[in-house]
């Protein structure tokens, strides 16, 4: 079977979220034709953090075909380019490119129309995108165009005979999982990228690039993005190696100076809980949680944060969590690896002083 995956770019390469979606899509593409008798045995199940299940199939196996859809010039996918290398390395055999002359920018409805057309021409049985802002938006449009259901933030999917597809998807930003049946001949899915590790295929595919000329309808480009040229400077919360978190325990907007200083010393950034942004102590873009940013740092130092579940949804993918909290019974302690019991207003300045002293003596 053919699986189509919408691929977003990051500079000259493929966006990390799309590599995760391709990993998922490859698992879905493989076994379809390989094992027509056992419809329930195929598919991909990457619900855990172990990417080991990713290579259930590949493009080499019995006709399973993984095709990428990109909005880019064909030259951006030449074999020596980063994007061309990554697609081939992830097992993509065919890339359909829609060049800027066809469609000059991001237009959600037009992108969905392109995918709808490619379902027809390729006979795709599944279309996937990463669960990013654009991925979710385009797949919602595709669901509406096709008059078909769309399952958001899937962690596993497999064909299920006549019934359609068995899927597991995230609810509550991943705090809850839903096992469901998607009743549709063509599965339309977004992939929960925080649940899937990006994993190259066992063998490289020979990538064929197709210049696709889509048939767009009037009005498809009525909503089109213009992107600002300037990139916001500094380290982003989503990709920071160290995040120093502040919650209600910080006490007010003036209490963040020591946290900022510590973050600066550690080459990280400050993140905050929802109550901090609801109170207007810090801007919303610093929020870690279900309604803010999901973070994946080496270290998350959570100061004065009780650990409401909506916050945990945003920081659970941190490699190490250390809590500083005056309440030894705070829920954050059952998500943290280490804790200091005490007032952050005492502990953090002392920590800053100790790191500075260490720097001087070093």
């Amino acid at each position, binding site marked *: 079977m053919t699986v189509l995956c919408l691929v977003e770019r990051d500079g000259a390469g493929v966006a990390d979220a799309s590599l995760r979606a391709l990993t998922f899509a490859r698992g879905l593409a493989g076994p379809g034709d390989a094992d027509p008798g056992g419809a329930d045995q195929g598919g991909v199940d990457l619900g855990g953090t172990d990417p080991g299940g990713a290579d259930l199939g590949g493009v080499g196996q019995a006709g399973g075909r993984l095709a990428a859809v990109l909005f880019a010039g064909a030259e951006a996918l030449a074999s020596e380019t980063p994007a061309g290398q990554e697609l081939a390395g992830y097992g993509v055999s065919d890339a359909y490119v829609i060049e800027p002359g066809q469609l000059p920018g991001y237009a959600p409805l037009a992108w969905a129309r392109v995918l709808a057309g490619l379902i027809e021409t390729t006979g795709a049985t599944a279309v996937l995108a990463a669960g990013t802002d654009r991925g979710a938006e385009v797949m919602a449009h595709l669901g509406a165009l096709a008059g078909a259901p769309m399952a958001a*933030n899937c962690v596993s999917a497999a064909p299920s005979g006549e019934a359609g597809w068995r899927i597991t998807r995230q*609810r509550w930003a991943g705090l809850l999982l839903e096992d469901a049946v998607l009743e549709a001949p063509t599965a339309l899915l977004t992939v929960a990228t925080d649940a899937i590790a990006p994993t190259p295929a066992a063998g490289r595919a020979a990538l064929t690039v197709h210049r696709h000329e889509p048939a767009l309808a009037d009005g498809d480009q009525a909503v089109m993005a213009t992107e600002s040229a300037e990139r916001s400077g500094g380290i982003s919360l989503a990709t920071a190696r160290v995040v120093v978190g502040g919650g209600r325990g910080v006490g007010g907007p003036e209490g963040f100076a020591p946290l900022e200083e510590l973050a600066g010393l550690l080459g990280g950034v400050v993140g905050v809980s929802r109550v901090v942004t609801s109170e207007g102590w810090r801007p919303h*873009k610093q929020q870690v949680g279900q309604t803010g940013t999901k973070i994946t740092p080496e270290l998350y130092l959570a100061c004065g944060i009780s650990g409401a579940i909506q916050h945990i949804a945003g920081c659970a993918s941190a490699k190490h969590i250390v809590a500083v909290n005056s309440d030894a019974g705070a829920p954050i302690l059952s998500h943290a690896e280490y*804790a200091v019991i005490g007032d952050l207003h005492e502990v953090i300045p002392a920590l800053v002083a100790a790191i500075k002293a260490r720097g001087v003596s070093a």
Partner: protein
Amino acid sequence: MEILVCVKRVPMVGGKIVVTGDGQDVDTRMSGFAMSPHEECAVEEAIQITERLGGNVSVLTLGPPDAAEQLRDALALGAGRAVLLETDGREWGPIATAEEIVAEARRRAEADQAYDLLLLGNEAADTGDYQVGVRVAHALGWPCVTGIKGIEIDDGGVRARREYRGNEELFEFGLPAVITVKEGINLPRYPSLPGRLRAKRAVIEEHRPQWRPDGLRKVALRVPETERKQATVLGTGADAVPALVALLDELGVLP
């Protein structure tokens, strides 16, 4: 400017989520309910727009009779009219939900009070389907953008902004339109006492749509298995700092 804001009643989950014995729902016996967070901001945004440009804010929810509580919350903040699409408590999927919102928009258009703008949350906190607004826009033939963090409206139309990979992207289009917003677009106000009193007395318009299945059929809900840790306590107060510094050193995050 006639604005309709679609909101959802969701459980307030504090420390953890518990699933009911039959695996079909979140156990809400111990939790309160609230408006889903992005939608709280959608209500605020609608009120701010009508404060600037004039007009009326209507608020709609599809949910059980108790969801009237969330409608009254929105009325207390300044919405002028509320519509309850009352259900029997069963969960509705995004396709059927969108169809009922479309039906409301058409009812108002037929009554010569057509909406100019529909605001929704980017996704509901509980089901997280990420699609109701887009489906509504398709059925009405209106432009749509999702995940918006800034809206400006003038005679020329709408300018809507969102973040994309550290940049900002801007969309410009005309009304009527559907926009889904994210928390952070504004800081919702607190209700005033007169607002609360007005909300308490307000009459809520009610309809009872017929439940039907969506194409995505829930089998069961479950809480993902995660290792339940208990933190190793490094020490108490500033006395713990040497141990903390040693740990940070071990983790390789010290300069």
